[in-house]
Structure formats: C-alpha cells, structure tokens
C-alpha cells in the first residue's frame, strides 16, 4: 500500500513516518509540506492513501481533498488535525475518517486498514464546509483544477483573467492558455464574488486584472485585461459596474 504524508510541520511528518514504518502498514512513497506539492506528488506516485493535514498555509487540506477527487484515480484520504472544531464537525458529520494529533498508533492502524476513497456525498459535504470558515467569511478555493489528458492541472486563482461559458463548458483563461473546467459560471460567481465580477451573461472577469473598456470593430463594448489579448464582451446593462471598478481602482479609462 502506497502512502503519502502531507503536513506543513516537519516533526508531525516524521512522527507519522516512524509510526507507519513500525506498524508495517504500508510504504511511505512521498511527503509534501503544502497542498500544491501534495497534488503534484499524487500525480507522480499515484498513492493509495493520502494522510492529509487540514490546516496548511496556502491551499488547506479540505481544498486538496476536493482537487484530489477530480483526479482520474483518486486516492483514499485520511485527514489529520490538532484542533479544528469547525472543520471537524463537518468532517465527522460526513463520516470522513480523521485522526487527532498527537495520533495514537492503534487509531492510525485502524484508519489505514479501512481507508477508502471519498464518496460523492462525503465530497459534497466537505464542499459545504469549505463555504464557511470559523471566521464567518466564506472560504474559497485558492486554485482551480481540471484534468487534461488524464493529468491534474492546477491553476492559481490569481492567474485567472476571466471565466467564459462557451457551448457546454466553462473555460478559465490565463496568460499562458486556457483550461476547460467543470464548474458552472453561477457557482463560480458565488464562490469568488470578491475577486470576480460578471460582465456578461456568459463571462466573469477578475477585478484585479481589468485595465479598461473599449469598443471592438463591431461596436460592442469590451473589457481589456492585462496579460491576455482576448477581449471580453460587456453587456450594456453591466458596463457601469466595470466603469465604477476602473474609477475606484484608479486604473486607465476608455
């Protein structure tokens, strides 16, 4: 059984490693100290089980689990945490396995023996937790993930210039290209309302990257964004929103 350990604290990782070795419960094939590395590691080594710390800088454990579920062969997930009353309540209510630090050896053994992949229902439950954090503010993903040719692609939210609904799918555009994702535009709008604004029935643009409004050759109003050449059409009704945004950020006008 291939196991990877994900925790931002080196001593927490070394303790888990030692215990797994003693239990002879499997082979630890890798360690990661943050969510992004963890996802890349999963791609590389295709583990059976991921021991996943909930509280990590950047992408937290809950978000890692959500991205993992999108992979071709999702591994089983066992959460570990020292104390997280809020997240724990949700994890418990969705019957997802977790271990409390300092972890006891028999508990670890039992968890490893019955580790299974997250079900759709459990995942949906976790997503609901992800929406609210202990601070009362909505907790949003830090990355958008998609599988491309069977590989997991991770796109940091800050890179994305706009989301556009085209035909049957939604694309996320970033300077180096675009990614087809599975989320719907309205779900994205709700989750990222602080950073993205709707400019058209079929598009959301990143507020931080808006540079101006201009007219295209057909006379439509379009948003110009930094880093990409594409223009995003703005509906007449929503154009004032962008103008206000430009004014308040002090950016260039038309």
């Amino acid at each position, binding site marked *: 059984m291939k196991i990877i350990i994900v925790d931002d604290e*080196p*001593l*927490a990782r070394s303790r888990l490693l030692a215990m797994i070795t003693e239990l002879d419960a499997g082979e630890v094939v890798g360690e990661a100290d943050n969510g992004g590395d963890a996802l890349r590691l999963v791609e590389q080594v295709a583990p059976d089980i991921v021991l996943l710390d909930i509280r990590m*800088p950047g992408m937290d454990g809950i978000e890692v689990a959500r991205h993992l579920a999108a992979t071709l062969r999702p591994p089983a997930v066992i959460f570990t945490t020292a104390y997280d009353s809020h997240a724990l309540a949700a994890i418990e209510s969705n019957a997802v396995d977790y271990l409390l630090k300092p972890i006891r050896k028999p508990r670890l053994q039992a968890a490893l023996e019955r580790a299974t992949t997250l079900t759709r229902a459990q995942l949906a439950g976790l997503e609901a937790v992800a929406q609210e954090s202990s*601070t009362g503010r909505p907790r949003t993903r*830090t990355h958008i993930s998609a599988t491309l040719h069977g590989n997991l692609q991770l796109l940091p939210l800050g890179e994305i210039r706009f989301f556009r609904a085209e035909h049957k799918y939604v694309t996320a555009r970033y300077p180096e290209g675009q990614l087809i994702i599975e989320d719907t535009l309205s779900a994205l709008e709700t989750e990222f309302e602080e950073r993205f604004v709707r400019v058209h029935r079929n598009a959301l643009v990143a507020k931080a990257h808006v540079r101006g409004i201009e007219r295209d050759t057909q006379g439509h109003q379009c948003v110009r964004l930094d880093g990409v050449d594409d223009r995003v059409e703005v509906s007449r009704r929503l154009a004032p929103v962008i103008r206000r945004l430009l004014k308040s950020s002090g950016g260039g006008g038309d």
Partner: protein
Amino acid sequence: MQDRVAKLSEDDLFLPDFCDMGTVFTVVVVGALLAFILVLSPVVSTTHWWRDLALNSLFIQWVALSSAGLLCSGRRWLSTLGNARAGIAAYGLILLVSLLCSEAAYWLVARPVMDVEHFIAQAGNSDLVPRSVPMGTMWHLEFLAKNLSITAIVAAVALRYFYVQYQWRSQVQSEAKARIQALQSRIRPHFLFNSMNTIASLTRTSPELAEQVTEDLADLFRASLGDASVPVTLEREIEVCRQYLRIEEQRLGARVSTEFEVDDLPADAVLPGLTLQPLAENAIYHGIEPAEHGGFVAISGGSDDRGIVVRITNSLPDTDARSARQSNKMAQENVEQRLRAFFGVNASLQVFGDATEYTVELRFPYLKDAS
C-alpha cells in the same frame, strides 16, 4: 482616574471618595438644588425669596460640606466596619452634623436676627405686639425637628443611591475581570495540541529537545494561568516570548526565523503579565502559519526619556493567503486595554506596516519593580 481606581480596589466601601474634588463638587451642586427645592416648595410664596434661598443654601452647604469632610477623614475607620455598619455610622454622623449645624444656625444667625427685628419692631411701633412667637422654645424645637427630618430623608436617599451604584460598579468590575482572565488564559488550543504533537515526535528523535519544549510549554502555561493583576518584569515577559517562539520554531521548522534586539530594554521595568506573548502569538498566527515560504518575527525595543518602546514585527504572507485568515483584533485590543488600565494615558499601542511587514509598537512609562 487612576487614583480613584486604585482607591476603589484598596477598600471595599460603598461610599464614594469624599476627598475627591469631583465628589465634593457634586455634593455642593446637589446641596444647591436642595436649597432651591426647599425655597420653591411652599404653596404660599414668601416675600423674602432671595434671602430664604441664601440662608437655606448656607445652612445646607454647612451640613453637606461638614459631612463630606468627616466622611473623607473618617473613611479609613469606616472601611474597617464593613458596608452595613459603615452605612449606619455615616447616617448617624450626617444626622449629628445636621443637629450641630442647626444649633449653630439658631444661636448664631436666627436668634440675633430675630432679636434685632424685635428691637426694631418695638422701637418703631411699641403698640404692636412684638413678634415674640418665633423666639420661643417651641420655635427652636420645631426648627431642629424640621432640619433633622429633612436631613434624615435626604441622607437616606443619598446613601441608598451610593449603595445601588456601588453594587452596579462592583458587578461591572467583576465582569470585566472575568473577561480579562478568560481572554488571558486563552492560549490557542490549536497551539497546545500541536505542541503536544511536537513533543511526541521529538521524544523519539531527540529526547533532549523534547525535554526543553516540555519545560518551555510548562513555563508558558504557568505564566498564562498566573494572577492577571500581578505585574511582571520586562525581562520575564521577554523570556516568556522567547519560550513561546522556541516552541514554534520546533514546530514550524525552517519556516520561521526569530530575532531579538532587546539588550537596550531595562530588565527591571514592570508591565502587566502576558502583554507581549499574545502579540508574538498573533505574529505567528497571521504572519507565519499562513505563509508557504515562512517568514520572520522580530522583537526589538529600547528606552528614552519618554519611556519604553517595544516593537513586535512580523513578515506578511502574500495577499492570496492573507484573506483566508481574517484577523480579529481581540488579542490586540485586550493588550491595549490592559496597558491602559495599568499605566493610564501614558501607554499606547500603535500598529503600522506595509504590504510585507506588520509592526505593533507598545509605549509605556518606565516603572521599576517596587518589591
């Protein structure tokens, strides 16, 4: 203000401090109002309105200020009696003062005035019946009885008011104290369990480090469970910060680096306990934990002729990670409140920084440990 706070905690008497200028002023104002009421209240209006007001005021201020003076100088004695007996004693004292003042007023003012009036009446028109009635013993007794009754009622109302206010004040105080204690003993549970995990892990690999972390953790908890009202030395408080940051360095590994530039700080200066450690904990919680690539926490300080300055600076994670942890300013506000309660207006907590750094600066006077 500070003095009053100190006095309140010094004795537990329900009476306000009558040596305080503010209280004396209130007594004078209330006395003047009472004089107005007494002059305005008769149904048949008197022709000597101003004279009556002046005489009433004079008399009431005699009684009120003498009582206040006695309560001020006798406070130490009263506070040994306990609230119930002190209340009775104060009541008796005020009645006695009123009696003495009434006697004095009768013999020094009323009697001579009436004698003069009597003389004028006799000299002007000897046929008229002299106004001898007010001069009689009956009038004297009635005068004393009236004054004593008024004093008895007013003093009872005032003492009752002081007692109710005292109850309210002590309730507010005990609530505030409970809140401070609750905040103070609130070392983040996440930190406790993570430290336990660190110790569990170190026990295998390096027992000596495990020992040190256990010792540091024990000291930290001793400090946080200690009496909130006992001040500590700056040296001790910085040591608590060092212990706390040592534990975090074990836990977070290479992600955190700490710097101390505290040689210029006077070791014997006093400050309320656990004022710096919560700020160091905040620095780790908001500055280091959310940062993938880690950062630094620096504690520096010095003193000048205006007092002591301590700065706690931490690096900030990049903006993406920052939004995930909204700061609640509770720890910071708590520290500021406790500094102000201890040092008064001379203490301040200021925050400044830019996109990469965050600094909390404390300023407070240099008070040496008295003990």
